[in-house]
């Protein structure tokens, strides 16, 4: 068995999905070929990292509550509860609880920076994905917060190619909430990202400077204004 044949069968070999005779041939080649052995180790390492991706556990009692609710709703005894999927608005009472006195603070956080300096830095996380971190200080738990991003030309959010405007609904908890924005920078110039946070009648718009990656060793600091 040659390298090309071995590499074509490598994933099935790692899955244990090959017939014994073929699997033996692959194993013999891997023992003899350093390059293919390295490819096998990369594949196994990738699978190990993927399988170790953490899962945030559900809230306590979720299974019991979900089954009970399914019984009630499925039998027609109770109407389907409004889930987040169908939220078109939010409780006015909650909005009024926040009121005009809500204070939104948006800080772009970089390590080693003194408090109040509000600078941004790109963190390399993958070949072309960089992370911009923002901390949002919320005065209380808030549901149905609309987050809108307006990205400059040459920058995009990972997973949403070609989109300069993005909007979604999320929730904030009282205190610090950290946003981690996976930004793909294709531009060679610095620019600004606008982050719009809206809850009820309370809206704040922040500008976050995006710094195009320079040489791998350094990243120029940016600034946020809001």
């Amino acid at each position, binding site marked *: 068995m040659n390298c090309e044949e071995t590499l074509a069968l490598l*994933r099935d070999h790692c899955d244990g999905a090959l017939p014994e005779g073929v699997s033996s041939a692959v194993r013999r080649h891997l023992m003899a070929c350093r390059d293919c052995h390295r490819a096998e180790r990369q594949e196994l390492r990738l699978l190990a990292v993927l399988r170790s991706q953490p899962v945030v556990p559900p809230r306590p009692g979720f299974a019991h509550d979900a*089954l009970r609710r399914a019984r009630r709703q499925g039998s027609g005894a109770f109407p389907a509860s409004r889930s987040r999927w169908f939220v078109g608005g939010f409780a006015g009472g909650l909005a009024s609880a926040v009121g005009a006195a809500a204070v939104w603070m948006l800080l772009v956080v970089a390590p080693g920076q003194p408090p109040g300096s509000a600078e941004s830095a790109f963190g390399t996380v993958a070949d072309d*994905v960089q992370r911009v971190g923002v901390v949002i200080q919320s005065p209380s738990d808030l549901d149905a917060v609309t987050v809108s991003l307006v990205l400059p030309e040459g920058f995009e959010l990972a997973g949403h190619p070609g989109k300069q405007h993005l909007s979604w609904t999320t929730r904030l908890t009282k205190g610090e909430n950290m946003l981690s924005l996976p930004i793909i920078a294709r531009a060679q110039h610095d620019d600004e990202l606008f982050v719009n946070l809206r809850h009820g009648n309370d809206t704040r718009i922040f500008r976050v400077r995006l710094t195009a990656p320079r040489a791998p060793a350094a990243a120029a600091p940016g600034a946020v204004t809001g």
Partner: protein
Amino acid sequence: MACRRSVFETLLEPHIPHLYRLAFRFCAQREDAEDLVQELLTKLYPRTGELECLDRPRPWLSRVLYRLYVDRYRRAVRDPVEFFEHTDLHPSGLPEPDQAAERLGLQQRIADALNCLNEDQRAVVILHDIEGFSLPEVQLILDVPLGTLKSRLNRAHSRLRGVLSDDEAVEPSADRRRVGI
């Protein structure tokens, strides 16, 4: 009715941990994952009789969950950002540099790379590589030919391996990481 409730719970309860985990893989948010599982259970309750006849319920349930995800959620903008509800802030109000560096470890980079895959590739990686379904089972869940699945896996792995290569190429050091938290 009491007998039917008992049958429903007996059939579904053992699968809820897996269904939630799968929902979380797709949605990446706890609340969305809980909502997705809730929607699934509500839909399945009237079909309790059908569930009793399933020989291997796990792939079937996963298929229904995935279809629900595609129909109800994939069309909306998936919340692309990560919220950490409990930040490790030191008294000055900013994370320690080492803590920030740890957050952007290999797992985070792989998670980011997963988010960069298109949805078809991402679904195959989640089901096969992460959740351990065999390719024939993934074929059943996604209703996609085996050759297409292998092709999607190859492209996805090629991209994801790039992240590992980058990690192996440099010395592990907090100083070398340009961290944006």
